């Protein structure tokens, strides 16, 4: 039988425990063992960014991280962003900007953006594009996501369509 290990970690402010194989990724532990399926797995080789979570405040790829590596860490996932069950200002700004379409890359983007906003409360458009260059979205062409970050940080959205508000 595969050996398993007990781990303790804080997820979205709550202490959680799990008994996992050492080879099990953080993404799989979050999704399977802790039933937090908001974190999505897009490539399992660290390129697409869909699985991004915050580990001790830093954006990280949960598909490239073994759960046993983050024992005792503070993890924040997409489920941890809402405030009292309501969308937080970033989520509201993304809805207002029609930021996303299919929603699969969305959790990774929102976690990466959260890390960006923690570091830089008013990022410029080039800074936003640079910070999000490791997250792949197949639906939107990114403009609406960048517009959502600008809106969330109190800056004017890009205006270049006859219908942009």
């Amino acid at each position, binding site marked *: 039988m*595969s050996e398993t290990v007990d781990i303790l970690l804080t997820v979205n402010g709550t202490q959680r425990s799990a008994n996992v194989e050492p080879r099990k990724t953080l993404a799989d532990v979050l999704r399977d063992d802790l039933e937090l399926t908001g974190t999505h797995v897009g490539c399992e080789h660290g390129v*697409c960014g869909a699985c991004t979570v915050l580990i001790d405040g830093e954006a990280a790829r949960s598909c490239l991280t073994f759960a046993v590596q983050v024992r005792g860490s503070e993890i924040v996932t997409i489920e941890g962003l809402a405030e009292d069950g309501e969308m937080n200002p970033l989520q509201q700004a993304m809805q207002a900007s029609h930021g996303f379409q299919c*929603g*699969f890359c*969305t959790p990774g983007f*929102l976690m990466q953006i959260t890390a960006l906003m923690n570091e830089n409360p008013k990022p410029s458009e080039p800074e936003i594009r640079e910070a999000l260059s490791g997250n792949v979205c197949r*639906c939107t062409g990114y403009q609406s996501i960048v517009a959502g970050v600008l809106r969330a940080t109190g800056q004017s959205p890009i205006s270049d369509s006859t219908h942009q508000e």
Partner: protein
Amino acid sequence: MSQQVAQRYVGSPIKRSEDPRILMGAGTYVDDVKLPGMVHAAFLRSPFAHATIASIDTSLARKAEGVLLVYTGEELEALLTPGPYGLGLIMSMEKPVFSCLATDKVRLVGDLVAIVVAESRYLAEDATELIDVEYDELPPVATVEQAFDPSNPPIFEDLGSNILVQSEPHAFGDVEGAFSRADHVLRVTISQHRHQNVPMETRGCVASYDPATEHLLMWSANQGVHIHRTTISGRLGMDPEKVRIRTADVGGSFGLKLGGSREDVAVAAASRALGLPVKYIEDRYENLTASGQAREESFDVEAAYTDDGDILGLKVKMVMDAGAYPGLAGALPSMIESMLPSAYKIAALEFQSTVIVTNKATYVAYRGPWAAETFVRERVIDLVAHELGREPFDIRMQNVVTRGEEPTVMITGRSLVGVTVRESLERLGELVDLPGFRLEQEAARAEGRYLGIGMASYIEAAPGPKMPGMPLGREEMRMELAEDGKLIVFTGQMPHGQSHETTIAQVAADEFGVAFEDVQVVFGDSDIVPPGFTGGSRSATMAGGAAIMTARALRAKVLETSSHLLEANVADLRIENGAVSVVGVPASAMTLADVASAVRQPGRLPEGVDGELKVENAYDGGSGGWSGGTHCAIVEVDCETGLVHIERYVVTEDCGKLINPAVVDGQVRGGVAQGIGAVLLERSAYDDRGNYLTATFMDYLMPTTMDIPNIEISHLETVPLDPDVNFRGIGEGGMIVAPPTICNAIEDALAPFGVRIYQQHLPPAKLLELIGVIEPE
């Protein structure tokens, strides 16, 4: 009809109903489905492109930890009814016939050899490595030359060769006359390279067979639950009524997830054998290698044109690489043929096509599957312009049709009613200062900087103009007024990013007379929703129209019923703001919830009056119509690195009346991004042994925030063709026309080097080759 309700929602970029759940991580994608007792499948896949299976030994795998089931191809086939998979179902192709898993031979790298079901995916994958397969390699068929070489073995024996379809030349108009009148004939070979859908969510399913009831419940990521059900019930030999397909959120598809796959069938069969729920989620390696690929065609083109720049006719020979296990590809040549003239006065066309099979992934639908017609034509127009030393914009304006003037029909027979490509070109001329750009370009060249401008136009039958004998389809919809006064809409559309929960609700709310928030759109359950699918840019017209017609019918029924409750004439009643009232008598208002509840009470309605506030309807597409437009890119090519920077990208497009402008803009931009990726980055590459070379995101390069510019969009809403429904589809247009737009711009930038572009894929190394900085491979 009582009166028109004010349009409050249609035309407005209102916020999406989908967003709170997807933004808070509360969506339900197929991998989020977890059923009690669920176990997990993994597949053993072929490492060879073409080989016979000499022997297969699964004994060790069967004994491995946590393993519940192992099937080889032969073992599984004994449990199935042969027939088509995926889009083969819709294409009704008789040959080739193939099995679910490979039995005697494998036909591509990544072909399915065995299925393993275990307690976890980790254990299932471990066990696949314990299966011992001996292969005898066969000569691979990985190129057009290899497919045509009769000394190579046929990939599918029942085809007798590696040629799937070969047509005689079809002639439209006076082809020889056009070529004899021409001052010049351009002869070129133009090709599109293989690339693929790559939705961020891979394919997957959870099958749950209940031995007690003999029913199968299957969750899956797909574009239409009923199409999926047909494949699953067909291959499992089950009554379709005993198969229920459910689908909630789908993480993109772009044509890939149409029809039940071979993997889906294998998983369903495993669930039936075990009596347990079985989950399979494709990983990215599998997705890139074997889920399906698109767009591998080459065209020998002759274009007849005059000194004055009139394009008189085309002769085109196409070869399309359908890959292995063909599904869609056989149906595309006729679409490409009929669309080639598009919105131009091209009066003669000869078209001949050959579709081959190779040891590569199946050619699948990808956002505008027939887009080669646009690429070929829009490249030819620029090449002709360069030969004549003319501005490509002027050649387009000279050759494009004008509304209300001859020709009103393409030479291939398709009606051009309502086509507004000319108007989109004119709008582009207003938005982009072409003479000013030429001055800027000249100044930049003097500094050793290479700027270029390119444009391209397209039209898409979304759904197409109504023509005799060619029905546009039948979109069913059901609506009912729930007891709480909410309007429930049941649609066969299967949204996977298109925002139908929002857009269909906008249309229905306006037409019925309720608040947007009081409309619930139900989709993705074959037991509940009418048949249908999302694809082909059809939903704006078809589902938009069905929503109008069905809401109108339900409104009439509610008013009729309310006339008894309110003791008033139907003609005096209206539904507004979620209440029925007598016009001019606000105090008479009865909320829809009160109406819905009253009709359920005995004695409130006269005998014989139907109190069921439900209607079913179907929409035939009305007058239909085209979408279309023109895109323009301004690029700079760095001639030292071969990198292309897109300085500006402008879209002028006409999809009729916009339901939700923000949704439309999102569809346009997303399509353009895929088109930019196709030209500058993406390629599904094989070597000449059929080894797949781009099986990770480090090899198959996807466009990022750094590659896609902000895209300016200008909407024309020119021609109302139909008295009721003038929404037209826009999902595919960006992906159809962006590739020639970018290629035309790059060719323009590299004009000082005399560069001509005949291939769509232009990564840095290719551009440096064209410029002459490096030697060709």
